[in-house]
């Protein structure tokens, strides 16, 4: 470890929902990662990734160009990107990967970027913070465990992996091979265990939250019905909280529970926390510091258990 305690620096790509709906995810990530020797530097002027479902469905060419613009901003900083959202990972990582390996796409994109004095070169990599936490090349489980000052002992926590970080695994290239298992992965459960909480398995845990692909906007009842199925499966095993690594999934589970109550008349009151928030709690940050009061579903019952 260097004198400052910082071993790695990344350009922090925020996306939309984390900074604009769950700002606690942003502040928790910055603080928690700093304690683990990783500095997240703001990626100035970044835009929406853009949304892979809603924007990509309209025109993939524009989608590639817009994602490439965000990548170029980081290339200009000569820094790899770290991000906190599966949807952003799908756009930013996948477009980076596609442009690196397909000259025709790269040429198309650069023709447009020329108009704004930019050029995509393919000089950086893109990582999800969950991946940085799990991979000991950057941080690793041991260090995560060592950073815990307030172990979340006794709390039963289930994991929602979401889709776009790990699927389709045929196209993904993780250094940690276990992350390529998309039928029943357990690497996030290992991270949950490192916070002192008890990870809990549940039926069909790899199912989608229902929000993606523009479906939340197109047919909210359909999207919520998928979410509801997951909530039923979670209720079956009894958990104190659900943790996710995607603010969009978080929005769907958290605000979605309020909508489910309105539309289906079912109440779950299941606290939903981004893993950055969960880790923040375990590292001794206060609920106020993490902005947990901004959640649609109160985190109080869970907090009473762990604080």
């Amino acid at each position, binding site marked *: 470890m260097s004198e400052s305690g910082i071993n790695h620096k990344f350009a922090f790509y*925020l996306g*939309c*929902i984390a*900074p*604009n*709906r769950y*700002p606690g995810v*942003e*502040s928790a990530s910055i603080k928690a990662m700093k304690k683990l020797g990783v500095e997240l530097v703001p*990626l*100035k*002027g*970044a*835009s*929406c990734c*853009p*949304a892979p*479902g*809603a*924007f*990509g*469905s*309209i*025109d*993939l060419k*524009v989608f590639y*160009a*817009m994602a490439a*613009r965000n990548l170029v901003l980081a290339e200009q900083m000569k820094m790899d990107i770290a991000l906190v959202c599966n949807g952003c990972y799908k756009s930013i990582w996948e477009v980076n990967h596609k442009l690196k390996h*397909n000259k025709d796409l790269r040429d198309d994109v650069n023709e*447009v*970027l020329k*108009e*704004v004095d930019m050029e995509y070169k393919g000089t950086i990599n893109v990582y999800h913070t969950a991946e940085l936490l799990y991979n000991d090349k950057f941080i690793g489980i041991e260090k995560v465990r060592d950073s815990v000052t307030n172990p979340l002992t006794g709390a039963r926590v289930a994991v929602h992996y979401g*889709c*776009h970080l790990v*699927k*389709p*695994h*045929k196209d993904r290239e993780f250094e940690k091979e276990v992350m390529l298992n*998309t039928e029943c992965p357990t690497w996030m459960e290992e991270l949950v265990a490192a916070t002192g909480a008890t990870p809990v398995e549940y039926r069909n845990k*790899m*199912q*989608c939250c*229902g929000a*993606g*692909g*523009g*479906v939340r*906007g*197109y*047919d909210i009842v*359909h*999207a919520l*019905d*998928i979410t509801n*199925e997951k909530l039923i499966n979670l209720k079956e095993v009894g958990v104190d909280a659900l943790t996710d690594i995607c603010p969009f999934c978080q929005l769907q589970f958290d605000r979605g529970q309020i909508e489910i109550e309105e539309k289906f008349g079912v109440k779950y009151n299941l606290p939903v926390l981004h893993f950055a928030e969960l880790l923040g709690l375990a590292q001794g940050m206060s609920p*106020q510091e993490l*902005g947990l009061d*901004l959640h649609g579903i109160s985190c109080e019952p869970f907090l009473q258990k762990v604080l």
Partner: protein
Amino acid sequence: MARTKGYPEALEKKLRDQRYIREDSNPEFTKNVKAISRTIAHMCYQCGTCTGSCPSAPRSSYRIRKFMRRAVLGLENEALTDPDLWLCTTCYSCSDRCPRDIIPTDVIMSMRNLAFKRDIVPVNFLKTVQAIYASGHGVPNNDVNRAAREKLGLTRDPPTTHMYPEYMPGIRKIIDHYKLKAEADRIVKEREG
């Protein structure tokens, strides 16, 4: 066809005869889907693993396997005018499990792109384009959140296009290059007046 290269011509002819073409098939559609999706829909043998993996299938009439067949047969109108096209959550479970290494999700994405070219598109998708054109964000900041950010010790606006609006002209130039905003505006206006 690479598969029959070196085989007698008769075999190639036989395979050609067996290709099932309906009157409403448009071979161009098959080609366009392949070009945009960059996946191999024609390798599909209709096993149905995709539909079996699909979270949208149990709660709707959306059948991804059906769309795969439409891609192969070039059934353009049938595919693009089906409202189920927009029920894919793009979870990629089908793509994860496809025994033919096809990415059915990307076939759906390409069909949505082609539908948009014919003005067939739900308005919420266009509104995302408009929002990004306006502020750079699909989900923009608001005053309640600004106050919350301040309390957390963050800047009121995140250090994105929100804090640095000088980046917006570049973004608009990229979107305008494809005339996407103009198209979105036109369709939204036609629908909503």
